[in-house]
């Protein structure tokens, strides 16, 4: 077989953990396949938004993509389960689930839609931030206008906490936080820092309500068309890049936290997160009544240690 060129998508900029890891994946791919496969990476989301890039990988225009499972949810229902608030206890719990039967069920759901996850990347935990006060109990969220990503689960989460969910384009969030069009938003440490949102919303409350993994995905037809030996090489390269990404991610989280705290951000641990998690019962109920077939997966995740 002649040498093949694949194209890959990644939304992050140069120097970001995922970008470095994707470049490493390209190198490893070249080494492990003896130059049979070359991966040309397009960083910075230059080939389109995340939902568009997911579609491009499914259609085969791109071979590879680094995606968050959030926007995969509307396509593969199994992947949407990880967008349930408080479904994972922490990041380690998430990886234990993904490396077990739960991860397999999500993979199968994605493969049915033309995407195969080769490895799982870390995107940390998302927490609330706002400009007014620390959040310690659901009551603190009551009446607050909180920007959320476009997903019924996220807007349901804010509603159940008594807040006012406000879906809003990412580019408008900074200005809206500054002027008070919204009172708060939620994200992980590195995004909170790199978007500058910490300049206009100085209270970061460690709610860790969403822990959504990322995947290094490949077009299913391309992967299934490879020899078994090649498939192993590709998977191995992906796993090694994921190990690197998780290390870099941990470093980046720490340095981002340091940066924003040095700039005067007030961080607070939430002593008891149970009231938040318990308030999510109606969200789970509504979700499971619409997706009854996913109940086993949800229960499997909840029962995983």
């Amino acid at each position, binding site marked *: 077989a002649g040498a093949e060129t694949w*194209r890959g998508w990644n939304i*992050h*900029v*140069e*120097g*970001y953990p995922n970008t470095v890891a994707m470049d490493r994946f390209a190198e490893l791919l070249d080494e492990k396949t003896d130059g049979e496969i070359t991966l040309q990476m*397009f*960083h*910075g*989301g*230059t*080939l*389109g*938004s995340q939902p*568009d890039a997911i*579609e*491009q990988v499914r*259609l*085969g*225009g791109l071979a590879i993509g680094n995606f968050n499972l959030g926007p995969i949810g509307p396509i593969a229902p199994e992947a949407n389960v990880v967008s349930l608030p408080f479904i994972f206890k922490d990041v380690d719990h998430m990886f234990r689930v993904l490396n077990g039967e739960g991860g397999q069920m999500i993979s199968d759901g994605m493969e049915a839609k033309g995407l195969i996850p080769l490895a799982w990347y870390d995107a940390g935990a998302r927490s609330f931030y706002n400009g007014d006060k620390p959040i310690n109990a659901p009551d603190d969220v009551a009446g607050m206008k909180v920007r959320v990503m476009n997903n019924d689960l996220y807007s349901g989460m804010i509603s159940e906490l008594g807040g006012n969910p406000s879906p*809003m*384009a990412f*580019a*408008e969030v*900074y*200005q*809206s936080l*500054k*002027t*008070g*069009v919204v009172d708060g938003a939620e994200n992980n440490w*590195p995004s909170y*820092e*790199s*978007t*500058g949102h910490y*300049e*206009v919303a100085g209270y970061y409350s460690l709610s860790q309500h969403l822990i959504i993994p990322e995947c290094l995905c490949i077009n299913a037809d391309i992967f299934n068309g490879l020899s078994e030996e090649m498939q192993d090489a590709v998977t191995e390269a992906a796993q090694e890049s994921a190990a690197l990404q998780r290390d870099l991610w941990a470093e980046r989280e720490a340095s*981002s936290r340091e940066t924003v705290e040095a700039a005067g951000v007030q961080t607070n641990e939430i002593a008891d997160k149970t009231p938040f998690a318990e308030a999510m019962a109606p969200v789970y109920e509504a979700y499971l009544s619409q997706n009854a077939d996913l109940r086993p997966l949800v229960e499997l995740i909840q029962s995983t240690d």
Partner: protein
Amino acid sequence: MGLLVLLGLFGVCVLIGVPVAFALGISAIAAFWYEGLPLMIGFQRIISGINVFSLMAIPFFIFAGELMFHGGIAMRLVRFASAAVGAVRGGLGIVNVFSSMLFGGISGSAVADISALGSILVPVMKEKGYDADYAVNVTVTSSIAGIIIPPSHNMIIFAIAAGGGISISKLFLAGVVPGVLMCLCLALAAYLVAVRRGYRAETFPGWVALALAFLGALPGLMTAVIIVGGVLSGVFTVTESGAFGAIYAFLVTLLVYRNITWENFRIAVRQSVRTTAMVMILIACAGAFAYMLTFYRVPSRTVELMTGLTDNPILILLLINLVLLVLGMIMDMAALILICTPIFLPVANSLGVDPYQFGMILLVNLGLGLCTPPVGSCLFVGCAVGKLPMEKAVRTIWPFYFAIFLALMLITFVPAISLTLPGLVDP
């Protein structure tokens, strides 16, 4: 070879008279086909080109502008403006520049500026004896103030592309002086061209007439107050403020001026839809075209070529300006910010150029690109608003390009212009 298909076919289509929007679409889809990429992705890019939230402000500002125009607000605004500064030669040209400075400071979108101000001022300027090309030139070039003067969503895109470490509020502050400087250069150009063409100054009508004109214009002027005040006080976002501008303009013309009739309203809607659709289909097809340019790595190849030429810092900065200008001529702004920032920012950093200053250089360059053929959304909209063929507008636009270029050179080689204000306010 594929790149040749893309650019060649685009050139041929434009030349034989295919509308520019469709020339972009046709050549892009042909390149998709040539590369064996799924054509469905080509059409996905066309849809995604306009599936962008910040573009939503465009129809609103166009609609508000049409309502203000057909409902008599524009006429009263301009009556006031010419009473105030009409006594200067080329007064309306200067009014045009300074309204952009104020309006652009609100909207953050150059195209929205042209849609709103251009649809008001260009017809009035024509009526007052200014040539259409002059009116369009002033409107088009001054509109890019909206990108440089804060707030500006393009600055936020730059900060994100720079990968952290850039404070958006500091970036906003950095834009104030360069934005005003650019407007001063443009106002000077507008004045000089007006003198050369012998546009007459109007006579000063006296203080009473000025006060009356002001009172007449006040309810209309409130549109701006509502938009600025609403955004600054945090009542709504820029996009929402556009919708409110339209709703307010409708109510004022209906209840206060009583100029709006069902017939007027229908014309305003019809014109707005026509202009909006023309702009949107162009941005949409440019999305597919830009995808193929990125696919062929045109931006990064250009940089490789450039850095191979010299290592003199002044020459490299000039080269960066040149490359950005050329890329800006053929590609859309947001895509270019995302592509060029990670490539050029490290180069600029290594030369000791401050990232905030570099942001201004990038934005002014790409802003200028919005006013140039063959791909310049501001120029397209300006020509549509002024009902003028593009080649006619471009023939006499040089003094205004030169004014922006002058500002660009000052911003490039005098760091204090960008850095003093953020240093004072936010050290």
